[in-house]
């Protein structure tokens, strides 16, 4: 399945990537699975997306839980807790 990935703020800086079109394997079905799948790339990916890191996730522009299921062409974003206002 093809999905659009987006990374923001400190996550974007650490990974050196702002967005990526990814073709995820069939075993990757939820937003949480995407995180685990990206961790497997190792290096900064493993470090930045590690389970112990407090990250927020969004799917199609809505803040979401790791259990949210992916859909074809969906946009999945990873970012640190927000600090606006």
């Amino acid at each position, binding site marked *: 399945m093809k999905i659009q990935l*987006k990374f*923001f*703020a*400190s996550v974007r800086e650490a990974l050196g990537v702002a967005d990526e079109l990814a073709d995820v394997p069939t075993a990757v079905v939820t937003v949480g699975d995407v995180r685990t799948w990206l961790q497997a790339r190792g290096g900064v990916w493993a470090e930045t997306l590690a389970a112990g890191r407090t990250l927020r996730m*969004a799917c199609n*522009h*809505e*803040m979401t839980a790791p259990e949210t299921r992916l859909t074809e062409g969906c946009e999945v*974003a990873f*970012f*640190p*807790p*927000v*600090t*606006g*206002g």
Partner: protein
Amino acid sequence: MTVKVQLEDFDLSTEVAVLRRANPKVGAVACFIGAVRDLNEGENVSAMVLEHYPGMTEKALEAIIERARVRWPIADAVIIHRYGPLAPTDQIVLVAVATAHRGDAFAACEFIMDYLKTAAPFWKKETLENGERWVDSREHDHAALEKWAEPGTPKAD
């Protein structure tokens, strides 16, 4: 109801005039402006860059206003949030709420700001004397949401 995410500065008087539009049902307008401080967590801040998530940001702010409208009879409301480079004393955010009575205006304005702090995808990066740092989210911002919890609703994240 208006949401704007913009590079440019804004003018409070202009925005409030638009909000009221000589509407005789509006008896109260409450406003909040957030500005860049030159000191944060004991360090001098000389500049700041605000990043956001285009597309999601606007939706998140609209959803926050809708959430407020469920609780208070709001005649009109505006949120303007800036992004990009900012300097100390610059305005960052405006929330203004027009209602019939002041209690609703004060409460809805504070509610919108409290939710904005934890739900709108903005991130601040500060320039300090010895480098840059991303601002950490604050526990008390999350604690601020608890006062809006309604009985029987799950605790806000």
